[in-house]
């Protein structure tokens, strides 16, 4: 009954596995030629759990958390690339279209200003996109640091629970709920980082998938973070294990921080650098509106060498629309050089692709990464749910079952009570036997 009430009380406790009382008949005693039972002995209270399933759940949790952490970030990233009628793609189209509109009347200052305005919008949108990727990256970086703190807190809890378990086991008692607590902690840890749990003679060893020991018996080893190259690296002692972590939200976050965002940023940088360089070069081939006309100067600031940070640094340095070199021969009416500027739209500026192709490819890539991750996360959710169902069928507390046990115990109690009262009556009769005769 104690077990039942404990089960019922813990119906909704996360990680609790139902317990059953393990009872055996008492050793019989020999009375002459008879062997008489001595009732029931409560051996121990046993928690019902399937260790194999537990391992599978931990693994599924690691994969699931990793995918979901990536997905959340990717969904945030892709909002920047969501529109086909605004943003960098539309800005590129509008810029080249503004050059086109200048060509019938190349000396018109309003149309020239239109080109510079379109260029400024383009540069600003490159800046904004690069900036918000950078902001997101530093947010993810902070998440990584917080996750490491949580990992450390969990591993120290696991170690201290492990100590208590060993203490109980040393006096041959079932640690029951303590193991539940520990399993629950390991599952929480699995949501953060991929770990392997190895049972040893003295408690358990928890190690990351690359073999870094986090918990060994009652001893836990904290991970630290160390700034390197603008982001926090995860250190086990003096070893940098950042890139070797797999599974858990930590791996998902690191994947976003160190692979996805830098990849997208670098594509934007290449595109920004390619556009700036080629348009500046095209402008330098022609003449501006000045009297006497001079060769065109830079429209955009010269991108940084190698293009790193070009999207953030992209600015329109030309402020006077008359400096745009539309003319190929120095006359104000010539639009010959606009053809050279427009031709940049068809030049391979980034990754061997034209500006708009490079951008649309990037959008397609961001979209398919997100949609693949989303599909993987859905599948992994389903697997995890399935496993948890299975685990529930082994370890979950069923109120019906507990109620039926209770009824059983109640009847058994009533029967036992009846036996006692009958024996009591018989005994009373036996005791009173002489009395009655004496009275008579």
């Amino acid at each position: 009954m104690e077990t039942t009430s404990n089960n019922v009380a813990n119906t909704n406790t996360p990680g609790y596995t139902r317990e059953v009382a393990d009872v055996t008949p008492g050793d019989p005693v020999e009375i002459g030629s008879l062997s008489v039972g001595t009732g029931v002995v409560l051996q121990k209270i046993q928690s019902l759990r399937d260790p194999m399933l537990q391992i599978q759940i931990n693994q599924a949790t690691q994969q699931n958390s990793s995918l979901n952490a990536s997905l959340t970030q990717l969904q945030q990233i892709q909002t920047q690339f969501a529109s086909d009628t605004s943003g960098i793609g539309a800005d590129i189209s509008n810029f080249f279209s503004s050059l086109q509109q200048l060509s019938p009347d190349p000396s018109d200052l309003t149309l020239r200003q239109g080109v510079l305005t379109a260029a400024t919008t383009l540069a600003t949108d490159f800046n904004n996109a690069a900036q918000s990727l950078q902001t997101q990256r530093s947010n993810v970086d902070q998440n990584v640091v917080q996750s490491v703190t949580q990992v450390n807190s969990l591993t120290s809890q696991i170690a201290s629970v492990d100590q208590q378990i060993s203490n109980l086991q040393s006096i041959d008692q079932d640690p029951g709920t303590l193991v539940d607590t520990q399993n629950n902690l390991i599952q929480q840890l699995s949501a953060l980082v991929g770990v392997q749990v190895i049972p040893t003679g003295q408690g358990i060893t928890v190690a990351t998938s690359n073999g870094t020991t986090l918990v060994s018996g009652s001893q836990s080893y904290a991970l630290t973070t160390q700034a390197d190259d603008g982001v926090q690296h995860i250190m086990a002692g003096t070893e940098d294990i950042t890139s070797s972590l797999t599974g858990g939200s930590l791996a998902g976050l690191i994947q976003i921080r160190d692979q996805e965002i830098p990849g997208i940023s670098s594509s934007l940088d290449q595109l920004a650098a390619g556009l700036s360089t080629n348009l500046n070069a095209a402008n330098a081939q022609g003449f501006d509106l000045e009297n006497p006309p001079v060769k065109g100067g830079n429209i955009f600031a010269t991108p940084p060498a190698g293009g790193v940070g070009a999207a953030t640094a992209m600015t329109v340095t030309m402020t006077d629309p008359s400096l745009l070199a539309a003319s190929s021969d120095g006359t104000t009416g010539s639009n010959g050089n606009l053809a050279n500027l427009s031709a940049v739209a068809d030049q391979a500026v980034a990754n061997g692709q034209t500006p708009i192709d490079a951008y649309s490819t990037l959008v397609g890539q961001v979209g398919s990464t997100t949609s693949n991750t989303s599909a993987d996360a859905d599948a992994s959710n389903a697997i995890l749910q399935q496993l948890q169902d299975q685990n529930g069928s082994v370890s979950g507390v069923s109120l019906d079952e507990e109620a039926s046990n209770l009824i059983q115990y109640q009847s058994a109690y009533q029967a036992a009570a009846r036996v006692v009262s009958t024996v009591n009556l018989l005994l009373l009769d036996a005791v009173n036997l002489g009395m009655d005769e004496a009275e008579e």
Partner: protein
Amino acid sequence: MRVNPNPMPDLMAALNQTELEEQQAELQISTGKSVNEPSDNPTAAALLIENNDQATFNSGYLQSISAVQGQLSTASSTLSSVTTALQQALSLGVEAAGGTLSASNQAAIANQLQGIQSQIVSLANTTYEGNYIFAGTKTSTAPYVVDSNLPDGVDYVGNTDVNEVSIGNGYKIAVNQPGSQLFSAPGNDVFLAINNLIQAVQTNTGIGTAVNAVSAASSYLSAQTVLYGNATDQTQSETTYLNAAQLQISQQQNTLGGANMAAAATNLSQAQTDNQAALAAISKLAQDNLFSYLT
């Protein structure tokens, strides 16, 4: 087999799923788009950007065309006016060549011819939106300056460059003809012909030859009008093509990224039904277990 006694996580997941479907259907209906994020359909998202690029270019071409058409029609009507003026000069020349006019009448005709000459100079210096359209690409200065010391009476200070404007992908047309190829083309120099005629009338010698020269120059100029006519025709047919292309692009945009409203509405009502079913299941759950029957 023992079943999982706690179906709540499954039910919550189902509820979550139906709510997600509801949201997606609602988003499609409210935006009219099936591709609201690149992940909704990555290929379509990339194609939509290319599509928008072409649409932007096409509307740019259409704007260029309307700007170009203004210039072309101004140039064309200016050439017609010059031709008309030359016809007037011709009939005056023929009148003078008759040999029956008095000296004062001859002088009056010469005066009239000088008037026509300066009219043609001013026509050749026509501007469109502030630009001299017969100056080649030196559009900021008047291409013809009167200079009586020169045989044709004017000095061409424009250049011989021609501007081309794209009116379609890889489709360019010339939008100007320099005056040096229209009014002062070697062999068909309008100004030389008219100047010679004036002198012939003034001196009353060789008027016939001079008239013939004016006639030849006038025919040459009429022939050049065809260039503008052709260009105008090209812009008109390109406008028709571009408008059709724009229509096709917007249809494509709809096919790629537009929401199927009927399907979205069906999905929404389906998701709502599912959602209510999940809610009903959750609310019914846990009302009953064996404990309820224990007294």
